[in-house]
């Protein structure tokens, strides 16, 4: 088992190198760079701009720049954001809590809705509950978050004035007031994103359950007189959750990466909005760092999904 994990981690190194190379080349090919503005800024003499470019090696051939970046990365230097005027790692760490809080809560909300609803709907297929759950799920994932987000803002902030529609990190007040305010401002983004995730996940859980519920061993379990609850939880759910857990593990990078659209709508200063503003302002070091972290997370959670799979399903042995 540990050997398997070790081997997978070793295999991850070349793939991450490959990913970083692709990312770097794509970003280098994109028009503009962090100093593009200097060239058009009349207050900066052209020779100063050129000197700066030379200092940061911006006009070096691409392979040299890549090797510089790689060398720095290996030594723990994530680069410097010219736009924000701070180190990229501090910038990311600043933005991460908001993303983890909002997107993480949304995922938890999605699971708390999807698993019970999906499981219950599958135990009574085509019942009224199932039909309603299915219809709502269908509506839920047909509506994009940029639509429901704005709709929520319109209803709960503009019309009813119950909830704030801009997420701030510097809430005035301390103690319980601070906690309440943190919850209050997260309600809308968490609901919008959580319900959207819950909608597709409910359908996934339901169909995974339905696939298992008609299998022979479920009848065997019923024939033992175990009772509906035990049969469903121990025999059906235990098997149906294998693909669901894998799906959730594969979705986890998104929790760290932030939901770009939702973060934009609610002005959440998270990783997703950092990525967007960095792209718009040609802040290449930040874009490179965020996308690379995202790639690492994808690789890592793929490994976690595989390990979980082997742990949940005894038929799969990891070698």
């Amino acid at each position, binding site marked *: 088992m540990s050997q398997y994990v070790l081997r997978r981690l070793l295999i991850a190194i070349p793939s991450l190198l490959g990913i970083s190379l692709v990312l770097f080349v794509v970003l280098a090919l994109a028009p503009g760079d962090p100093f593009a503005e200097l060239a058009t800024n009349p207050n900066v003499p052209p020779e100063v701009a050129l000197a700066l470019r030379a200092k940061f090696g911006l006009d070096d051939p691409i392979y040299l720049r890549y090797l510089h970046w790689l060398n720095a990365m290996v030594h723990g230097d994530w680069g410097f954001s010219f736009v924000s005027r701070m180190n990229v790692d501090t910038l990311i760490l600043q933005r991460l809590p908001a993303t983890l809080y909002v997107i993480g809560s949304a995922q938890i909300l999605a699971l708390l809705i999807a698993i019970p609803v999906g499981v219950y709907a599958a135990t009574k297929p085509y019942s009224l509950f199932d039909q309603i759950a299915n219809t709502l799920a269908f509506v839920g994932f047909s509506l994009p978050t940029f639509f429901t987000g704005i709709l929520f803002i319109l209803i709960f902030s503009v019309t009813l004035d119950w909830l704030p529609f801009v997420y701030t990190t510097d809430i005035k007040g301390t103690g319980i007031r601070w906690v309440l305010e943190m919850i209050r401002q997260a309600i809308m983004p968490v609901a919008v994103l959580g319900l959207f995730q819950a909608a597709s996940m409910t359908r996934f859980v339901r169909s995974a359950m339905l696939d298992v519920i*008609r*299998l*022979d*061993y479920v*009848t*065997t*379990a*019923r*024939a*033992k*007189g*175990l*009772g*509906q609850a*035990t049969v469903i939880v*121990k*025999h059906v759910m*235990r*098997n149906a959750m*294998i693909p669901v857990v894998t799906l959730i593990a594969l979705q986890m990078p998104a929790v760290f990466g932030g939901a770009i659209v939702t973060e934009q709508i609610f002005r959440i200063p998270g990783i997703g909005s950092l990525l967007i503003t960095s792209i718009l302002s040609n802040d290449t070091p930040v874009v490179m760092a965020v996308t690379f972290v995202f790639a690492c997370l994808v690789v890592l959670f793929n490994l976690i999904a595989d390990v979980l799979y082997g742990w*949940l*399903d*005894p*038929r799969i042995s990891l070698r």
Partner: protein
Amino acid sequence: MAPLLEIKGLKTHFSTDDGILQAVDGVDISINKGETLCVVGESGCGKTVTAMSILKLIAMPPGRIAAGQIIFEGRDLVPLTSSQLDEIRAKEIGFIFQEPMTSLNPVLTIGEQIAESLRRHEAVTKKQALERTIEMLKLVQIPNAEGRVHNYPHQFSGGMRQRVMIAMALACKPKLIIADEPTTALDVTIQAQILDLLQDMKERFGMAVMLITHAMGVVAETAQRVVVMYAGKVVEEAPVDDLFGDPRHPYTQGLIRSIPRIDLDSEHKTRLEAIGGSVPILINPPVGCRFAPRCKFAMNICTEKEPLLREISPGHRMACHLGDTHLGAAS
């Protein structure tokens, strides 16, 4: 003596998009204590549905017990709810399924799957349940039971899994075992072993066995009494010797003639006889005898009036107009 289990006029219907499928349509079967009863018939004749109806293991909906009584030790099981039936399932009536490859939960150890039934029905500790489980595995001749109890189903062969299923069904020492084609999915050498084991267990625990099969060879080997089913109905019922010695219903005769024989010398060897046609679809079945379209002896009355099950000699009942055409003339 009252029979252990008495099924009276059982009708199990399934709602489908095309109409009501009358999978079991008025079946009477009784099993005495300690008896082995075989239920035979070709695929789709309703034998499995009959068996599954006893413990309401059919999917409901779309399945439904439309009529009839299932009296087990003087108590009708049909009106009971699923949770009331849970007290009877495994404890009083054990079930062995056809497919050992798919009837065990792949993510639980076999020990856990046997023990959970013990823990459900008997006041035993986890440790006692494990000991009993190992004991049961030894009884069904699983080598190295102490080690194997912690293995998963995929680590067993088909025959071994069926032994596990038998151990599971026997764990709570039920009074009746329903074995639904327990050997169909196994290869021939293993089939005999499993049947022997079943017979052995039956003698040891003194339980009754309802063995569902389509193999006449299995019937001859194990049964005391035989019920022949066709298209959701019982067509003949007799003690095993009577049935093979004096089969009365044309369908039973056909079934027996379709057994390959190796004991005849080459002069007497004939082509193996098959029953032509196939089982009718049981949505809006034809009036009259359901076997009539495939019957060599079919008469006019056969497509007009349904033959009723009647006793022709003690313990031997059959449902065919043949031999009493006077009934037809009278009506």
